[in-house]
């Protein structure tokens, strides 16, 4: 009796992880970003995808840069990120088949209520960044080659400022995901560029609020790409296509549009 129960326990230890592997048969892996994950979007749409297509979608949420690298190593079937130039290069280099615009939202600059750089209410992001740099107010950067990081660097460039010279001083590169960087910013009272969705769904806002929003330069486009079986023979072609097709279908687009946090729409579908 005693040995039997131990044997059963050992058996279940071995069999259960294996069973979990087998359950992957009808599933795909999506390399995606922390912003879409932390915003709660996947928690909302994936059960619907499962119900309507029978597909189990497993999301690995990392920065856009890392997601692209992972997909280039064939560790994913679909790439869903937000850095259009990098995505187009991914397709051009043969790793992806075709890139579709999927949805957009926008970036915002959040910061402490005390607003040391006096940027509250500004729409002009270039002007706001210039004020932050001139006043040497703390600014936290993702510093992780993510889509948000790339967007932030582009905005600094647009303002003709190279903040990396002040790295470790007023410009603080966390090298972490959106959520971790927001936690750090709130902790040290630094301004930070965030996608609106991550910020809306963030639970540790402290006295932080949105200071700068509405500039067209803050546009944040998400794209979806299927991994190319010519480069990655192991990729699940049909299942991956099924997911992409669903996302850009009218039904998928409407579902994305219907995702709300506190009544606010966080993603605007724009597949054509």
């Amino acid at each position, binding site marked *: 009796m005693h040995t039997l129960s131990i044997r059963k326990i*050992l058996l*279940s*230890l*071995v069999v*259960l*992880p*294996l069973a*979990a*592997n087998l*359950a*992957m048969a009808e599933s795909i*892996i999506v390399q995606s970003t*922390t912003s879409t994950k*932390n915003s709660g979007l*996947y*928690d909302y749409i*994936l059960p619907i995808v499962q119900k309507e297509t029978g597909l189990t979608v*497993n*999301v*690995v*949420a990392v920065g856009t840069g890392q997601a692209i690298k*992972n997909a280039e*190593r*064939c*560790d994913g079937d679909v790439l869903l990120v937000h850095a259009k130039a990098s995505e187009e290069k991914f397709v051009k280099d043969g790793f992806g088949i075709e890139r579709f615009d999927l949805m957009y939202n926008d970036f915002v600059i959040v910061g402490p209520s005390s607003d040391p750089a006096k940027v509250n209410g500004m729409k002009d992001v270039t002007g706001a960044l210039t004020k932050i740099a001139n006043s040497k107010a703390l600014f936290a950067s993702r510093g992780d080659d993510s889509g948000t990081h790339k967007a932030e660097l582009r905005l600094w460039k647009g303002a003709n400022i190279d903040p990396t010279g002040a790295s470790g001083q007023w410009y603080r590169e966390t090298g972490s*995901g*959106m*959520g*971790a960087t*927001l*936690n750090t910013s709130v902790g040290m009272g630094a301004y930070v560029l965030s996608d609106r969705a991550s910020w809306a*769904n*963030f*639970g*540790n*806002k402290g006295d932080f609020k949105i200071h700068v929003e509405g500039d067209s330069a803050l546009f944040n486009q998400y794209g979806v790409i299927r991994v190319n079986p010519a480069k*990655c023979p*192991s990729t699940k072609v049909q299942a991956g296509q099924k997911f992409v097709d669903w996302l850009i279908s009218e039904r998928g687009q409407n579902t994305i549009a219907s995702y709300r946090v506190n009544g606010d729409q966080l993603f605007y579908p724009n597949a054509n």
Partner: protein
Amino acid sequence: MITDAFVEAGRLLIRFDAELMEILALSMQVSSLALLISVVIGLPVGALLAISRFPGRRIAITVLNALLGLPPVVVGLLVYLMLSRSGPLGVLGLLYTPTAMVIAQVVLITPIIGALSCQVIEDLHHEYDAQFQSLSVPRTTAVLAYLWDARYSLITAVLAGFGRAISEVGAVIIVGGNIDHLTRVMTTAIALETSKGELAIALALGIILLSIALIVNAVVMILKTQAKRMAYV
């Protein structure tokens, strides 16, 4: 915040939250299986290193001890590169599965079991070697005798390995991917809730994880005390 966390932990436990139970079960499964494999590999290796004499033995033991400081994130990265579709073991399709997490934890904790058991058995060996040799006790018998004699100390080594496995996040988040309902374990769930700024929930999960570790250790302690008592009757 701390009070909120305890309240939240209590609420999750009382509700017997299905998702929490799933995550908890996977944590226990992955780490228990990793521990089992690590014991099967680590104990004999530790014992052999303790009693054999060969050139480079000191170096081998030093390397083993140094591996105690192996950073989980490095282990995760190495296992990721091995299991990646473009890596040498990519054809197995193990990346982002619980099996990958077991492999990473085995790499991480086998040195712990090996190094600690080596130390324990080496001490015994110093004590009994002359006696065993004068009685011409075969080497395998001697090893088994050492293992049996050192069983209580070895349990501590095993518990140290379990503690390391169940608590690490750096390796499993890379090779598992923290995928909901597939590879999410307690530590990666804590990391996720922290990144969502849900600090009370994150801390609540931490409290639950610590409670589980406490229960495991308490059960082992009780069994050990009982076994010792029986031995002296």
